[in-house]
């Protein structure tokens, strides 16, 4: 453990090292800005940046990550409260603004708990230690005779004092050194590992929760933007006459394209006194575009091209053993080609941000997963300094990766600066679907050899997909390392393995979407492994457990959190046991399975499907997850339930197509979602574990589509290599 070092003597600010970058813990600086000070008659004690205890016993805990249904506003503070022995009833959660002092705030990659479990415990332990010292000082006893208990410090004699009554003394104490801190034993956890309700649940159900879309400022204007239908196309000319005639429209401005990964796309902004007028004004614009080079993009043709690229040799990423020899000696060769389309996030709340530029300062309110990146974009656009820019994070009506790309924050900033008033940019649903950062389109080719006993002796996996890196370094034509691990760390015990990548150029902005590369890789690997089981004449479950093979670390060279084959097999066994794999199912029903490791967590699902009049129905999903130590059981369950629906949506309907550079879909009629009537029952088991906490938000997604496809095969003998299933007329 790194030691705390002083970085500023004046305010006795300290920092601790973190995997995610430095996190500053400051002492005796209020976590409130002057604007929202606590009532004057209260005294506050701020043992660190995440904790404020007031003299009335009320406790304010900071959530540094964004709430988008992932439950962080509950889980992160609950870790602090548990370690502090605080009473959860007395806790209010306050959202952090975007600031490096909170460490990494990018709520992305399913890592909030993984990164912050230990630091949050530390924040709680610091507070508890100081309160114990304060009580000991007050009673003139040794700290070893005192302990914390549900918002009180208790002396061995039985006397006790409330946390709030210790504030005055605690304030005067020095922050304890990090190596002197002690921690609760996991068996004494009060909140960690239990079911906690969301701190926002009441606001959600009464309509008082404030999302980016709901934030209002005095004199705030609403803006809708018409962007070029083709990515990175530019404006030749535009006519705003009709737009300005719409009642409520106040101004029409040209937004420049900011050529940065998270920069504004550019376009024409219609600014109005209400959202509807802005939307109507946008429709009334007449714009002539220069579509630019991406006009050549046709997703159908592109699919043929990348499919060709995986049918020839590619760039070698992994070459273990001797694949050609294995193929030559095979008693059976199986090969399949997989094609998956672009997807878009479609969070229920569209991207929304408010910016208020005043001189060289700017305050933002945004539904953002990444307040620090938002801040950086605003600072650079305004050419101003860090302290001049405040990013307030509202609740997010879903994110799924879309809201970690703050291009819409930049749009609001440009407009506010231009018209000298606070501006809320609201994307229409059509904008969200047509101008996003798309989940990549992919072609994959897999080939394997079986020997006489039906064991897999060789495995070749070739894939081509436009890389997310192309958004950051235009021109990149190959998948990055981060987009390859889920293929190269193949958790199967096969002697000869080769992984290659083919060329694929991006013609739209490519971005990450819930579970990212694990969607295509999780699909192809799981469907292909199932295909091999049938080719070998074996039960898919037995075959798969055998294919994963003996207990071992699959990627011994990985720095931390290595892939453990025993944990992978275990989740598969648990899901199969809960589904009673092998039992007699009702006539016309069948099971399919998939198992996948992503975001350092292990997830398996068994799904039960039926087909009636050639229409698919998913009845049950049995999911097992091993994500290490559980923080909030309720959240993990909810995330697995939600992931099943998210996975089903992409399996059934998920498809973005492009014609002459323009996205063809526009709203929920042609970019469909699973609805209530299609919903299965999702049964979740969380494997008990003492391992480090790992990802939850994303790893439930990749297994769903392949498990469904495998179940359909079992039932009908037909195997689908391309999604969505709506293309095959079965949903």
């Amino acid at each position, binding site marked *: 453990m790194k030691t705390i070092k002083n970085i500023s003597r004046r305010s006795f600010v300290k920092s601790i090292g973190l995997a995610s970058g430095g996190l500053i813990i400051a002492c005796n600086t209020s976590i409130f800005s002057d604007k929202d000070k606590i009532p004057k008659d209260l005294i506050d004690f701020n043992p660190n940046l995440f904790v404020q205890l007031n003299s009335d016993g009320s406790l304010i805990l900071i959530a540094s990550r964004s709430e988008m249904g992932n439950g962080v506003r509950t889980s992160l503070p609950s870790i602090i409260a548990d370690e502090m022995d605080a009473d959860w009833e007395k806790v209010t959660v306050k959202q952090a603004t975007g600031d490096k002092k909170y460490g990494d705030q990018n709520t992305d990659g399913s890592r909030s708990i993984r990164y912050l479990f230990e630091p949050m415990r530390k924040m709680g332990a610091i507070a508890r230690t100081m309160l114990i010292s304060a009580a000991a000082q007050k009673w003139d006893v040794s700290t070893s005779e005192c302990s914390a208990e549900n918002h009180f410090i208790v002396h061995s004699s039985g006397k006790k004092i409330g946390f709030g009554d210790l504030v005055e003394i605690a304030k005067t104490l020095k922050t304890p050194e990090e190596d002197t801190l002690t921690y609760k034993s996991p068996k004494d956890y009060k909140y960690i590992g239990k079911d906690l309700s969301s701190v926002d649940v009441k606001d959600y*159900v009464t309509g008082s929760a404030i999302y980016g879309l709901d934030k209002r400022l005095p004199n705030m204007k609403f803006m809708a933007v018409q962007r070029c239908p083709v990515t990175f196309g530019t404006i030749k000319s535009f006519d705003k006459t009709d737009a300005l005639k719409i009642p409520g429209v106040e101004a029409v401005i040209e937004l420049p394209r900011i050529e940065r990964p998270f920069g504004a796309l550019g376009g024409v902004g219609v600014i109005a006194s209400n959202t509807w007028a802005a939307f109507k004004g946008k429709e009334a614009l007449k714009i002539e575009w220069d579509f630019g080079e991406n006009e050549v993009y046709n997703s159908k043709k592109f699919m043929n091209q990348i499919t060709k690229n995986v049918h020839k040799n590619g760039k070698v990423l992994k070459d273990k053993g001797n694949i050609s020899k294995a193929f030559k000696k095979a008693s059976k060769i199986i090969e399949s080609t997989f094609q998956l389309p672009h997807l878009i996030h479609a969070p229920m709340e569209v991207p929304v941000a408010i910016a208020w530029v005043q001189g060289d300062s700017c305050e933002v309110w945004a539904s953002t997963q990444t307040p620090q990146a938002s801040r950086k974009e605003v600072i650079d656009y305004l050419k101003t300094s860090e302290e001049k820019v405040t990013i307030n994070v509202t*609740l997010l009506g879903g994110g799924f990766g879309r809201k970690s790309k703050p291009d819409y924050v930049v749009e609001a900033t440009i407009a506010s600066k231009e018209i000298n008033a606070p501006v809320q940019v609201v994307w229409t649903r059509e904008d969200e679907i047509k101008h996003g950062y798309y989940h990549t389109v992919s072609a994959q080719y897999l080939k394997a050899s079986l020997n006489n006993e039906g064991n897999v002796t060789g495995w070749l996996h070739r894939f081509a997909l436009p890389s997310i890196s192309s958004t950051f370094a235009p021109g990149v034509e190959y998948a990055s390392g981060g987009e390859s691990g889920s293929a190269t760390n193949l958790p199967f015990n096969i002697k000869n393995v080769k992984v290659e990548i083919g060329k694929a150029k991006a013609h739209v902005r490519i971005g990450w979407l819930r579970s990212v590369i694990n969607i295509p890789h999780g699909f192809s690997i799981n469907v292909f492994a199932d295909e091999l089981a049938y080719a070998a004449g074996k039960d898919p479950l037995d075959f798969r457990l055998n294919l994963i093979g003996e207990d071992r670390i699959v990627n011994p060279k990985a720095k931390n959190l290595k892939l453990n084959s025993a944990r992978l097999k275990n989740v598969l066994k648990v899901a199969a046991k809960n589904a009673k794999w092998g039992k007699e199912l009702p006539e016309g029903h069948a099971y399919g399975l998939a198992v996948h490791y992503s975001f350092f967590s292990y997830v398996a699902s068994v799904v039960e499907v039926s087909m009636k009049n050639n229409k698919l129905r998913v009845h049950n999903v049995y999911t097992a997850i091993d994500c290490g130590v559980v923080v909030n059981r309720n959240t993990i369950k909810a995330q697995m339930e939600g992931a099943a629906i998210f996975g089903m949506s992409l399996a059934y309907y998920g498809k973005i197509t492009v014609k002459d550079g323009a996205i063809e879909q526009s709203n929920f009629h042609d970019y469909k979602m699973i609805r209530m009537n299609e919903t299965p029952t999702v049964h979740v088991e969380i494997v008990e574990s003492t391992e480090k906490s790992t990802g939850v938000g994303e790893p439930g997604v990749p297994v769903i589509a392949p498990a469904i496809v495998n179940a359909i095969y079992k039932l009908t003998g037909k195997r689908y290599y391309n999604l969505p299933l709506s293309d095959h007329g079965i949903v």
Partner: protein
Amino acid sequence: MITLHINGEKHEINVSSEMPLLWAIRDIIGLTGTKYGCGKGLCGSCKVLLDNSPVQSCIIPVSAAEGKEILTIEGKSKNLQLLQQSWIDLNVPQCGFCQPGQLIAATALLDKNDNPNDTEIDEAMIGNICRCGTYQRIKKAIHKTVELKKQN
């Protein structure tokens, strides 16, 4: 001037009669619990009760709501309150954004049907998308509310 009766209160607003009810409620009257999700009647985020019937306020012009009783998520109705409690008890919401619309749709269902079965629930809720995928808990919460009502 257009007069709207929302949650028992009278509002006089000066807007074009074509403005969808959704935007009058959100931007003019300032009740932001009713959400925009698609603007095309496809997702149900904007549902309100108009004289006890669920409507997508994003495709209803404000003029069509004149003289009618509008109930939004901020309002009070017996079934709505019971449903809200079940929603809380079962931790239904994830991001929460679709839930006002879901609750309004469920309220309309229970107002008409004391004891809906699964198919009836599906039919009543089919117009409401939840991208977070909370359907299973929504269904459970509706059943739970029905049970509570039976006990009382």
